[in-house]
């Protein structure tokens, strides 16, 4: 379970990106963060992934107050959190397999376990046949699926996705959303930031609309 209490984030330039958000996300829940550009969606995801530190307030993930983690503990927290971005941030000089192997090697999995997990992740995103290819040889949708496969390969408790379909056409976007729904069905908590309401409205999940760093509206499933 994720609990945000009176969460605030002010950047060094004085911009208040998050202005006192209180929110609870149940374990195994999928929620959409919506809102216009500058509403605070990306900042909220960065705070959840500890890419940024909150200015005040608290973030509790599975009974652990993560805003109090020191810099040595953050990497171990990140291993439990899969992050997906609008651009898939892949290493273009490495094969799909090597891209997926990176988090597993960092976490210290054996080669056999690494192969097995990569196989399972690629099977889930339907890219098993492309494991030897370089990312640049793949389409945009395939690259995003590799990014998703990398995010799930360590079997995280939570997946944070920031505009994961932002660069994709509507058909591919639907495929990606369906993939997230399938991941949610195996018990992974997902927090997805998107401004594409048309894409998510047919899906029956909670939507939290942010505006100017605050929760404007919550639309339950």
């Amino acid at each position, binding site marked *: 379970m994720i609990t945000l209490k009176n969460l605030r984030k002010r950047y060094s330039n004085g911009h208040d990106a998050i202005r006192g958000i209180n929110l609870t996300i*149940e*374990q*195994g*829940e*999928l929620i959409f963060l919506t809102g216009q550009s500058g509403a605070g969606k990306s900042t909220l995801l960065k705070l959840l*992934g500890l*890419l940024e530190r909150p200015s005040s307030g608290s973030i509790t993930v599975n009974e652990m107050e993560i805003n109090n983690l020191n*810099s*040595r503990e953050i*990497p*171990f927290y*990140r*291993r439990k959190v899969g*992050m997906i971005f609008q651009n898939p*941030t*892949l*290493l273009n000089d490495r094969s799909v397999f090597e891209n997926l192997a*990176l*988090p597993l*090697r*960092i*976490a*210290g999995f054996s080669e056999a376990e690494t192969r*097995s*997990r990569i196989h*399972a*992740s690629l*099977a*889930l995103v339907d890219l098993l046949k492309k494991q030897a290819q370089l990312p640049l040889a793949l389409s945009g949708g395939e690259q995003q699926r590799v990014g998703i496969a*990398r995010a*799930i390969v*360590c*079997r995280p408790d939570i997946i944070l996705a920031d505009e994961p379909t932002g660069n994709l056409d509507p058909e591919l976007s639907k495929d990606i959303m369906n993939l997230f*729904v*399938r*991941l*949610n*069905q*195996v*018990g*992974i908590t997902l927090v997805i930031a998107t401004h594409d309401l048309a894409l998510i409205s047919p899906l*029956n*999940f*909670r939507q939290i609309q942010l505006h100017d760093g605050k929760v404007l509206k919550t639309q*339950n*499933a």
Partner: protein
Amino acid sequence: MTQPLKENNPAEKAIAEKKPKNNTVNLISIWFKQHQAACKNAIKHLISTPLSSLLTIFVVAIALSLPSALQVMIKNLESSQTSINEQAKITLFLKIGTSEADINALTQQLSTNDSLLEVRFISAEQALKDFQQSSNLGNTLSALKNNPLPASVVITPDTQKLTINDIEFLLGDYQALEAIDIAQIDVGWIKKLFSIIELAKHFAIGVSIFLVFAVLIIIGNTIRNLGQRFQEEIAISKLVGATDAYVRRIFLYSGLFYGLLGSIFGLTFVFIGILWVTPHVNTLAALYDTNINITGPGLNDSFSLIVIGIILGLGGAWVASNRIINRLSL
């Protein structure tokens, strides 16, 4: 809203499986494997950029070989001190007419001194004979009615026990003795040489300190360039849970290899330099009627230079990698 689990798809089932817990043995094995991988990556990088790697190694080698060569030079000069000190023999010229009893008493008194290696009496007759042989003035000297040369006592001080200053002090004591006319030693050039050695020692220390910083900067700069090349990988690695130690590892191994190879090449340069300079030093030593055996860095010195190279490599890499990691602030 919590969705029900669906486990009929094997891939989904696999993703839903929990991560096995690590025990201590596993953690050690993981740590070892990650070091092995970082070491391999560092070697791979060195080989994949042969020109820039060789240039860095050569610059480090030159920077390490200079103080090492100075050190070798100083050690050789110091070890040749014994040979040079042998030139510091004291000659005590006795007053003409000194009785045999006084001479015996004097030589006996000198022989009891532990800090003297040899006390040799040369009679006036023997001195004349030696002079005739060495000067080619045999006939002229034979024509003299009286032997103009005095008897003398030649003393070899123990240079393990006495310094040049001690010997000079001793000379003053002998000069005050009743039977001694002149006490003589030529230590001026030896003193000058030792002053030069002292100066060289200070110079070597200064150069060493300067070059230590130079090596740190060279390796640090190389690692910084390496960091720029790996910037994207570092950022992604940190996003997926890499610790600072994990990120730092490849840089530390690279620094270690630069330091290790740089010091080995540096040692090679020193040995080549010794081979090149030895004939010239021998010629110079012969001019001073002495013998200087040039020896290269011993096993201990070679090992020390390699350890210093490795420490500098690691130090430079540590500083540079910390800057790379801090700049990312992930």
